[in-house]
């Protein structure tokens, strides 16, 4: 990965013979950061939890596209027992081919008799898809705008600052809901915005302000530095300076911001689902929690608990990992 202090042993050839034994090889920003990160047990555990969730989401996605039938846990729509079956309590169930067997569902069943556990696993795909697309959209807007504002300054900067201040003046939840409610069931450029499409579009279009501000600040600071001056002296164009010199050097800021923002997107999905603006026909953690509102009065607590635990584990892992990543890559960035 690119870094500002990329050095290798080959640079030492100009030094006096024998001197290279005393000079340790240089490490890039990323190599150094990852080395520090590896020493932190908690951060590594969190990293593997996040990887597990991402893998699960990818697997569910592939299984859906390729229409796989096995393994059993991807069949979230299958009716496996009577409705509202308690977790870990054995029950008798006659399958479609007439066989009667004793089963137990270790996270219970929902009102239609579908497995809560499988639905919670599928929810990972929904939530991570939403968060991923929302992140991509907000990066695609925020990073170029921030870079342009910080690099060119002048009227462009004023214009972008005006956009940023306007958007951040509106309370975030109001803004998000306004976008979600307007975009829902609209057809834009032939694309019908149904279910989660309108959700991640609304999140992405409203949440780029933070990263834009960060990138702008970094660009203002870094465009005066020596390596940019050197690049300009050798005749690099503005595009080249921005894309191959400045952006790689702020890349870690984007990654850190992303890891912490992911959590917000997952929590926002829950709130939008609860408001009836989320996914409608496939399981999502938000929809599960929303359904639990009516179910708790009947003492059905497992659907709610399954979704809460799923969100809690992923958020905790992402939060702790994001914090550790920030401390390792850029300790100055601490802006709680």
């Amino acid at each position, binding site marked *: 990965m690119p870094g500002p202090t990329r050095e290798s042993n080959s640079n030492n050839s100009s030094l006096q013979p024998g001197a290279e034994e005393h000079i340790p090889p240089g490490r890039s920003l990323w190599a150094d950061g990852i080395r520090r990160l590896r020493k932190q047990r908690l951060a590594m555990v969190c990293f593997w939890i996040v990887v597990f969730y991402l893998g699960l989401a990818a697997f569910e996605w592939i299984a859906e596209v390729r229409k796989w039938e096995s393994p059993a846990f991807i069949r979230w729509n299958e009716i496996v027992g009577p409705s509202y079956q308690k977790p870990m309590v054995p029950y008798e169930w006659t399958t479609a081919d007439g066989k009667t067997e004793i089963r137990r569902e270790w996270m219970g069943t929902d009102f239609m008799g579908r497995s809560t556990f499988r639905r919670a696993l599928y929810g990972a795909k929904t939530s991570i898809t939403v968060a991923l697309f929302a992140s991509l959209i907000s990066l695609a807007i925020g990073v170029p705008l921030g870079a342009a504002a910080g690099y060119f300054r002048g009227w462009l900067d004023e214009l972008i600052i005006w956009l940023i*201040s*306007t958007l951040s*003046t509106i309370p975030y939840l109001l803004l998000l809901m306004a976008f979600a409610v*307007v975009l829902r069931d609209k057809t834009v450029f032939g694309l019908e915005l149904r279910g989660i499409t309108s959700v991640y579009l609304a999140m992405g279009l409203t949440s780029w302000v933070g990263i834009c501000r960060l990138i702008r600040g970094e660009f203002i600071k870094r465009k005066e530095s020596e390596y940019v001056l050197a690049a300009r002296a050798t005749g690099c164009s503005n595009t080249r300076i921005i894309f191959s010199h400045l952006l790689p050097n702020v890349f870690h800021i984007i990654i850190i911001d992303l890891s912490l923002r992911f959590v917000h997107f997952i929590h926002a999905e829950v709130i939008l689902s609860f408001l009836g603006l989320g996914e409608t026909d496939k399981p999502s953690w938000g929809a599960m929690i929303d359904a639990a509102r009516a179910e*708790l009065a009947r003492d059905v607590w497992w659907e709610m608990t399954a979704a809460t635990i799923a969100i*809690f584990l992923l958020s905790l892992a992402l939060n702790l990992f994001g914090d550790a990543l920030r401390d390792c890559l850029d300790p100055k960035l601490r802006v709680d």
Partner: protein
Amino acid sequence: MTVYIIRRLLYTVPIVVGVLLLTFFLFSVVGGDISQQIAGKNADAETIAEIRHEYGFDKPLFWSLDSQFIDHFRKALTFNFGRALDREKISDKILRGVGPSLSLTVPMFLGTLVLSISLALMVAFVRGSWLDVAAVVLCVAGMSIPYLSFIIYGQYIFAYKLGMFPIMYMPEESLLTSLALPVLIGIAAGLGGNLRFYRTIVLDEMRSDYVRTAFAKGLSTSKVLFKHVLKNALIPIITSVVLSIPYLFLGSLLLERFFGIPGLGSLMIEAIASRDFFIINAMTFIFSLLIVVFTLLTDICYAWADPRIKLE
């Protein structure tokens, strides 16, 4: 000072215009004509035309003296937002919701503030120890639980199972009994993030030179914390407090919904459920304006307290 205030005031104009442009684009250009939805599925053409006329959807979007664009600005700047889809005046609806919202959010906000600042000072006593690490991890854990789970579990356990509080808000009961549980849940849900925020502020302050001097001259930790650090940490704390005041008026969307509190959060949820763009539009504008005003006040207070700012 006057020059600074005038310049700062002028700077808010483009922002207010920006908010209006954005809401116009969102609700009138993208959202567009919702008369079909207002009239219902089986309405005849005549009813729809009537509704189109009543809400002004038949006017041109831009180039006219009587366009929707001009209407949008006129409505907002005169605070005359017209009627909601249920024919009630929007300003009446909003004014009615402010009281219940504030009676929920003010105690919640003060409780969170006092609790998290005192806990942050306590954590600063044991900074660097395993207790400090445990406190941070607990904060992050608290932040990782969805807000809805706090509310649903809280209501289920304390009101429904244990019967310690009424399940829903009851206007005839005293505010104390009917709002106690939502306030407590709100404090519990917000504590993690706030404690972490104030802990960072206090620890940042602890790194200053004057703290080292205070320790060097032999002051005890509690003296340093309460006499020196707290006083200096008050500046960022007060800023964040002042800037959160507009959000108090906004109420709590989810808490109000679950406990049936007739505040602005409930109003917002009803507006979303019935896709009432008029209410959402009015709320967005009013709250942006409130935030603009409070940001302005903070800046002016800063300039008044710190003469260097005016020169920028």
